[in-house]
């Protein structure tokens, strides 16, 4: 609705001269408008097709109210179809005051950039929170001091809000560092010699290494390089467990909504055994070994295109079989859907591998650096077994292996742990309670 006079505040559409669907040219009269001062024909400020008339004949609206929608046929920019909002440019032409032009169409909520947050795939960009930024990046002056002195903000203990490193903290750190006798700067590692490239022959397919693959490659190499791996295996007679699962699986599925696999039993046995043998839940730290209090179990999950991911169940000792079954189901599902957050895959203290699900009977897993050990649960296979009294029976047998870091522990400790796990798994019968 245009302003047809200096003190005019509203106008009435006396008559529409165009209908919806009509084409209109620029300056062609589109309506007759009455105000208490004057009646006038309203020329269209745009050319196009009238999509909609927003105000009925006879209605009185305030100056500036939208009265019609005109499709101008231009690329629909963020404004969508141009709006016919003939707000006057103000009584005096020479002062196109800032803001007299109608506000661009309020952007629809659809364009939300918040899609990048949290729910995106595990590798997607996530908007960090203020708390995270405070810890990671602190403040301008701290960043500047850190850069000037070659200090990692994360290596300093922070006394500021939320553990933030304050200016005082970093200044103290720098002073302390300068006071300490200068250590020999570690000799720069020689740059790796340029790698010899593999010759590609005709017919060969070259697959680019993805960042996931590269990360796995890095991790595995590092683990093998740093930790002297040793490995041992025991056989567990899990016939009772098999029987238990057979009896209970239907009811479990119905009641809990997730499948009952052997994995929760294995994890539970591992967790309880780790409590008795904490040296397998530890980290090598050069001149000391740190025994972790929390038991965070990583579950190795194989993703179809040859990627491996290890989501972590934190405080796995808080859960019983039912809880573990649920948690495992949840993290595996999220892993397959690529919905794991960095928090989900960090903080593990021990890893359980389940190649048995794919039919393996023996495997030699690589330790998930920087943990002390990793356990593999192999496939359950019916085998003829010689019992105590020399009778031969067909039993369901599962191999359990542990790869361990020989710097931290020896075979004895590894086997004591492994046997504890075996004992627990062998103790189940079809009558056992599932808690």
């Amino acid at each position, binding site marked *: 609705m245009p302003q047809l006079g200096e003190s005019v505040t509203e106008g009435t559409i006396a008559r529409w001269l165009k209908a919806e669907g009509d084409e209109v040219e620029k300056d062609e009269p589109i309506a007759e408008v009455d105000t208490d001062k004057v009646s006038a024909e309203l020329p269209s400020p745009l050319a196009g097709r009238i999509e909609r008339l927003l105000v009925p004949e006879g209605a009185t609206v305030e100056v500036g109210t939208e009265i019609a929608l005109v499709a101008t046929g231009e690329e629909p920019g963020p404004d969508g179809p141009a709006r016919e909002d003939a707000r006057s440019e103000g009584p005096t032409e020479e002062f196109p005051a800032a803001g007299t032009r109608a506000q661009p169409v309020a952007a629809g909520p659809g364009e939300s950039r918040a899609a990048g947050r949290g729910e995106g795939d595990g590798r997607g960009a996530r908007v960090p929170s203020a708390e995270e930024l405070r810890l990671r990046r602190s*403040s301008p*002056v701290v960043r500047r001091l850190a850069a000037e002195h070659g200090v990692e903000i994360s290596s300093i203990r922070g006394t500021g809000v939320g553990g933030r490193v304050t*200016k005082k903290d970093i200044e103290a750190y720098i002073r302390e560092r300068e006071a300490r006798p200068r250590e020999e700067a570690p000799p720069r590692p020689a740059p790796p010699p340029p790698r010899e490239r593999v010759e590609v022959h005709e017919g060969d397919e070259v697959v680019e290494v993805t960042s996931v693959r590269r990360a796995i490659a890095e991790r595995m190499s590092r683990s093998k390089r740093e930790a002297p791996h040793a490995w041992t295996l025991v056989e567990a007679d899990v016939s009772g467990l098999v029987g238990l699962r057979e009896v209970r699986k239907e009811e479990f599925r119905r009641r809990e909504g997730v499948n009952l696999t052997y994995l929760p039993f294995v994890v539970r046995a591992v967790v309880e055994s780790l409590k008795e043998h904490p040296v397998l839940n530890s980290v090598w730290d050069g001149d000391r070994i740190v025994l972790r209090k929390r038991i965070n179990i990583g579950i190795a999950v194989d993703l179809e295109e040859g990627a491996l991911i290890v989501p972590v169940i934190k405080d796995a000792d808080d859960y019983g079989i039912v809880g573990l079954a649920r948690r495992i189901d949840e993290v595996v599902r999220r892993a397959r859907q690529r919905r794991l957050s960095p928090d989900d895959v960090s903080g593990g203290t021990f890893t359980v591998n389940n190649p048995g699900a794919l039919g393996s009977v023996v495997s030699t897993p690589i330790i998930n650096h920087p943990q002390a050990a990793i356990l593999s649960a192999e496939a359950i296979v019916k085998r003829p077994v010689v019992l105590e009294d020399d009778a031969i029976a067909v039993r369901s047998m599962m191999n359990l292996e542990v790869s361990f870091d020989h710097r931290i522990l020896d075979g004895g400790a590894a086997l004591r742990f492994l046997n504890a796990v075996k004992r627990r798994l062998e103790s189940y019968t079809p009558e056992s309670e599932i808690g």
Partner: protein
Amino acid sequence: MAVRTLLQAIHDALAEEMRSDERVMVLGEDVGRAGGVFRVTEGLQEEFGPYRVLDTPLAESLIVGSAIGLSVNGMRPVAEIQFADFIPPAFDQIVSEAARFHYRSKGAWSVPLTIRVPYGAVHGGALYHSQSNEAYFCQVPGLKVVAPTFPADAKGMLKSAIRDPNPVLFYEHKRTYRLLKQEVPEEEYTLPLGRAKVHRRGQDITVCSYGLMLQYVLEAAERLSGEHGVQTEVVEPLTLYPLDRETILESARKTGKFLVVVEANITGSVAAEIAATVAQEAFEWLDAPVMRLGTPDVPAAAFARPLMDRLIPDRARVEEAMLELARY
């Protein structure tokens, strides 16, 4: 040196200027016979007569308008707006006329006008006797706006304002008229406009403030030092427009933590301008976000005492803001 209250210091400045320069005159509501509703101009009409100490009609546009006219004709008027809340009727004269004479006339005319403006909330003052509206004028080139808190600064700066050939708004916090006392030199002195003052030096946080709030800040700084080991640097702008950016920024860069405390409504306040300046020009030195404390955006001030106390920053809230900043 004698101990004077803020009120006495202002009175003394007026009396001394009027004695030494016969062009100096005072005009406003109740300033003459009654000696001013706060007694600031007490005794002046007796000493200088009714033509140099004028009781005006109740019309602020007239007070300032005629003062402008007087000033371009050779006088040095000191106009009083009885309460800052009454200044809107004079707004046009101040902003459209007084501020622009010099510029419009290419320097041919100047307006050596001083406008004294008591401001600040008092219990029972309510909507028309409480406002802190200094920010209205802190974006009008051609004006100067000053708000010295303490007696010695006030006396020296009022003299400078009167002697300044350009319009100066001189804001006085009415709640500090008698509250703040200080040793004031008896000999003749002036203080230049446009210079901020560091009241207290410290390493940990900078707090910038003026008026009654400044008094609260200084008290809180003492407590923070004694009880929490936090050393506060306290800066008073003294001149709100134009700001002494150098002094303010120097302090901000030194401590990295900056808080501005004002009594005015926080949005669009002088605090906001100071904070923006610091955020932009001291960015690399900042160890915390630049903070402001003021009255929330509600009409100032409430008549009901508990409501007024709840909204206008008090000692406790000032201290809390300072401590929070120190801990960031």
